[in-house]
C-alpha cells in the first residue's frame, strides 16, 4: 500500500471520512490551546511559589508572563471547546445521545470544572493586586486544579470509548496471532427481556451466559452482533425488522414485533451501566490512569518546549542586555523542565499507555506495529526491523517470549487504518528528537556557556515539534479507534448524523478553525512581546 493508499484507506475505508477529518481538526485546534491552559496554569503557580519562597523577581516576572499567556488563550480554548462540543452533537448525534444517556456523569461533573476554571483563572490574573500574595497563590492552585479536574472528566469519557470496562479484547501474546478473536461485550439483561430470548439460538450466534439472578442474566455477546443491534436501534428499526428477531422466542415475537428495538437495547445498556456503577463506569475503563497521565504529561511537555522556544526567540531578538539575565534564567527553567517532562513522557507515561493499548486494543496495536505484508514498516525501511520486533514484545508485554498480534489475521471489519503505523513511529522519532533538544539545552544552561545561534534556533522550532508530536499521539489514538466509535459497542456508521453536510462545508469549517488558531498564535505573540 502506497502513501496515497494509506490515506484512502483512512478516509474511504470507513464511513464519514470528511466528517472525521473535520472532527479531527476541531478537536486538535481545541487541544492545541488546551495544553497551555493545563500546562501554563500549573507552571505559573509553581514559579509564583518559588518567587514567594526566594523573593527573586525573575520568578515573579516569569510567573506573570505564563499567566498572561494562558489567560489570553483560555477564552479561545473555551470557545473551541464549545465548537467541538457542538461539532460532536451535529456530526455524531447518536454517539452524543448515547454518551448523554449512559455515561453522562463525567460530562455533567465537567460543568463544575468549567465554572472553577473560568472563575479562578480570571481571578488569578485580574485580582492579583486586590488579595494577599498567599491568597493569590491559593487562587492559582484552584485555577490549575479546575483545568486538571476538567481534563480528568473528559479523558475518562475518551478512555471509555477506547476500552470500555465491559468489553473484553481477545488476544493472548503467549500463544500469538492465532489467538485473536473479535472482542466480546458483557451485558446485564433484565430478566423480563431475557425471558423473551431463545437461549439456544443466542448460543448459536456466539453468546454465552455468564450468570443468572432473579433480576437479570449476565451474558457475553460478540461485538459484531452488538454493533449490528446498536446500528439497527439508532436507525429506528422495530424488533421485528431487526437482527434480534432471530433470537426472540417465536411465541412472543408477534407481541414484540412492533416495539422499537431502541427501547429494548436501552433497557439492557442502562441496566449494564447501573451494574458497573453509573457514576464510576468511565473511570473504571481500562487504561484510564495511563490516558490521564499521558495527556497531562503532553500538556506539560508542550508548555515546557513552548517556554524554551519563546525565551530563545527573545534572546535572539533582544537588542539590549537589560533583560538578558532574566531570559537566561527562564531558559534554564524551561530546559530542565523540558528534559524532565520528555523523559517522564517517554519512559513512564507513554510506556504505560502503549502497554495498555497492547493489552486492551490488540487490533490497534497490530496496526501501530504494522504486523502485515500490506505495507513496509518504518523500522524495516530503516533496517531496524529485527531489533524492533525483538524489543517490542518486551516493552508491550514485559517478556521477550511474547508475540505481537498479526494485522492480517484480524478480520477485515475489525482492522484500524494502517496509516497509524507511520504516525506512531513518526511520533516516536519526534519524541526522541525532542529528548535530544532538551538534553542539549540542559547541557548548555548547566554549563552556563553561551548559546550558539543555531542552538537557539533549534530551541525556537521545538514548540512546533512538540505540538506535532502531541497531535500525532492523538492521531494514533483516535484514528486507531476505527472502525469503532466506542470499542466493541458502536461503530462509525451508527454514530453519524442522518443528514451529513456537504464536503465543501466540512472542509470550509476545518480551514476556518485552523485560520482562527493561526491568528490566535500571532495575537498571543504580539500580546506577550510587543511593546
Amino acid at each position, binding site marked *: 500500500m502506497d502513501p496515497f493508499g494509506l490515506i484512502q484507506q483512512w478516509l474511504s475505508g470507513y464511513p464519514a471520512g470528511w466528517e472525521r477529518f473535520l472532527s479531527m481538526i476541531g478537536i486538535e485546534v481545541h487541544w492545541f490551546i488546551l495544553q497551555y491552559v493545563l500546562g501554563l496554569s500549573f507552571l505559573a503557580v509553581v514559579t509564583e511559589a518559588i518567587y514567594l519562597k526566594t523573593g527573586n523577581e525573575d520568578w515573579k516576572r516569569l510567573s506573570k508572563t505564563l499567566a498572561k499567556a494562558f489567560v*489570553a*488563550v483560555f*477564552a*479561545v480554548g*473555551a*470557545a473551541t*471547546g*464549545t*465548537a467541538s*462540543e*457542538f461539532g460532536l*452533537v*451535529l*456530526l455524531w*448525534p*447518536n454517539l*452524543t*445521545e*448515547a*454518551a*448523554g*444517556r*449512559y455515561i*453522562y*456523569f463525567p*460530562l*455533567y*461533573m*465537567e*460543568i463544575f470544572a*468549567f*465554572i*472553577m476554571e*473560568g*472563575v*479562578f483563572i*480570571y*481571578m488569578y490574573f485580574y*485580582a492579583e493586586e*486586590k488579595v494577599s500574595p498567599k491568597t493569590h497563590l491559593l487562587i492559582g492552585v484552584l485555577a490549575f486544579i479546575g483545568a486538571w479536574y476538567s481534563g480528568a472528566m473528559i479523558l475518562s469519557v475518551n478512555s471509555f470509548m477506547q476500552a470500555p470496562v465491559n468489553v473484553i479484547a481477545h488476544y493472548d501474546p503467549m500463544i500469538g496471532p492465532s489467538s485473536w478473536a473479535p472482542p466480546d461485550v458483557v451485558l446485564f439483561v433484565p430478566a423480563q427481556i431475557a425471558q423473551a430470548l431463545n437461549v439456544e439460538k443466542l448460543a448459536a450466534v456466539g453468546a454465552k451466559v455468564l450468570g443468572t439472578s432473579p433480576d437479570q442474566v449476565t451474558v457475553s455477546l460478540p461485538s459484531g452482533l452488538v454493533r449490528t443491534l446498536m446500528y439497527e436501534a439508532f436507525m*429506528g428499526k422495530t424488533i421485528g425488522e431487526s437482527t434480534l428477531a432471530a433470537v426472540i422466542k417465536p411465541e412472543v415475537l408477534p407481541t414484540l414485533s412492533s416495539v422499537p428495538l*431502541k427501547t429494548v437495547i436501552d433497557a439492557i445498556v*442502562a441496566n449494564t*451501566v447501573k451494574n458497573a456503577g*453509573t*457514576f464510576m463506569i468511565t473511570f473504571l475503563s481500562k487504561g484510564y490512569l495511563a490516558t490521564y497521565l499521558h495527556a497531562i504529561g503532553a500538556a506539560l511537555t508542550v508548555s515546557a518546549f513552548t517556554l524554551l522556544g519563546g525565551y530563545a526567540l527573545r534572546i535572539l531578538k533582544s537588542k539590549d542586555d537589560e533583560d538578558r539575565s532574566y531570559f537566561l534564567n527562564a531558559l534554564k527553567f524551561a530546559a530542565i523542565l523540558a528534559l524532565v517532562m520528555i523523559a517522564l513522557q517517554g519512559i513512564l507515561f507513554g510506556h504505560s499507555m502503549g502497554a495498555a493499548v497492547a493489552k486492551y486494543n490488540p487490533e490497534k496495536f497490530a496496526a501501530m506495529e504494522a504486523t502485515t505484508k500490506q505495507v513496509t514498516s518504518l523500522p524495516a525501511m530503516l533496517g531496524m526491523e529485527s531489533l524492533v520486533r525483538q524489543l517490542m514484545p518486551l516493552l508491550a508485554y514485559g517478556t521477550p517470549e511474547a508475540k505481537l498480534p498479526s494485522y492480517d489475521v484480524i478480520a477485515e471489519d475489525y482492522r484500524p487504518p494502517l496509516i497509524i503505523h507511520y504516525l506512531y513511529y513518526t511520533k516516536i522519532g519526534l519524541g526522541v528528537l525532542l529528548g535530544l533538544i532538551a538534553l542539549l539545552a540542559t547541557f548548555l544552561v548547566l554549563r552556563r556557556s553561551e548559546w550558539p545561534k543555531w542552538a537557539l534556533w533549534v530551541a525556537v522550532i521545538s514548540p512546533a515539534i512538540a505540538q506535532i508530536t502531541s497531535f500525532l499521539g492523538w492521531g494514533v489514538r483516535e484514528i486507531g479507534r476505527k472502525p469503532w466509535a466506542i470499542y466493541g459497542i458502536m461503530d462509525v456508521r451508527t454514530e453519524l*448524523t*442522518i*443528514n451529513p*453536510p456537504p464536503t465543501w*462545508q466540512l472542509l470550509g*469549517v476545518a480551514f*476556518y478553525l485552523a485560520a*482562527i488558531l493561526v*491568528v490566535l498564535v500571532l*495575537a*498571543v505573540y*504580539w*500580546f506577550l512581546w*510587543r511593546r
Partner: protein
Amino acid sequence: MQAPLPVSAIISLTFGLHIILVNLDMALATFIPLMEWWSLKRKDDFLMDRAKVLMRYYASTYAVAGVFGTGFTVALLSFYPQFIGLAGHLTWVPFGLAILIIALRFLTIVLYWYLWDKISSNIHLLVGAVMALTGYLIPFGFRAVFAFLNVPSGLHLEPKPYLDVVEALANPTFLPLFLKSVFGALAAGSLVLVSAYSIRYLSAGELREKYLDLVRLYAKYGGISLLLMVIFGLWYSISLLVTPYKFNNIFGFLVGASPQHDFSWLFILKMVLVAVQFVAVYYVLKGKELTDVIGWAKVAGPAALATVFTGEMLNMHSQLPYFVAQPEVVHSLPELFKQALLTTTANTLADVPELYMITAVFLVPLLAATGAMFYLFLKD
C-alpha cells in the same frame, strides 16, 4: 406533568445565569467600541478610560457567560439525551453558523482587549466592530432554533427527517423573537451601565458631572431600546397565536383562556419590571432632584436584568412539557421522536437524588466563588 423539579431547577438556573450574562455581553461589546470611537473623535480621555475599565471588566467575565452556556447544554444532554440527539440530526446549519461566530467572537474579544494600544486605532476599532457584530449573529442562529421550538417550520419527515433552512427562517416567530432579544439586551446593558455609573458618581469627586452625563446618555439609549423591545415583544406575542398552547400558557386568564399551565403571573411580573424601568428612565432623564435621579438610576439595572430572566423563564416554561410548543405536532410523530420531545421523563440514570446532592455540594461554593470574583473586580 412538567419536567421533574430538580431537573427543571438545574436547567433553569444554568440557562438563566447564561442568558443574563449573554445580554450584558452583547450590550458591552457594542458600547465599548462605541465609547472608544467617541473618545477618539472628541479627544476625550475620560471616555477612553471608561471604555478600558469596562473592557477590563468585560474581558474578565465574558467567558463565564460561555461557561454557564456549556453548563446548560451539558445539563440538557444529561437529562434529555434523546432531545439533543434529535436536535443534532436536524440543526447543522443554524447551530453550525452559531459555532463559527462564537469562535470568531472569542477571538475578536481577545484581539480587541489584549492588543489595545499595540495596533493602530483604526484596526482596533475595526476589530471592535466585528466583536460587536458577532454579538448579534450568535443569537441569530440560536433564536432560529428557539423559533423552531415554537413552531417546527421547515421540518420534513420524508424521506428522512431533515430541516429546510429557508423555511425555518421564514418561521413567523423568528424575526420578532430575534429583534425583541437584541433590543432587550441593549436595554438591559444600557440600564446596568446607568446603575453602575450612578454608583460611581457618588464617589467620583471632580468627575461627578462626567459620570452624570454618562448616566443620562445610557438612560436615553436604554429608554429607546426598551421601547423597541416592547414593540417587538408585542409583535412576538401576536406571532405566538400560531401556537395556541404556548400563547394560552403565557397569557392565561388575561386573554380568557384556561391553559394547562398558567404562567400569566410571570408575564404580569415581567410587565411590572418593564414599567419600573420606564419610570426609572423617566426620572433619570427628567428628574429635577438629584436624589431622585440617582435613586432611580440604581433601580434601573437590577430591574432590567430581572426582566431578562423572567422573560426567558416565561418563554421556556410556557411550552413545557413539550420541547416543541405544538402538542398536536409532537403527538403525531413516531414514538421515538415523541419521547425525545417530551420533558416529562428525564434520563432515568441521571434523575436520581445522589446527583442532586452532588450538584448542590459542587454548585453552591462555585456560585459563591463567582460572586467573590465579581466583587473583587468591582472593588476599588
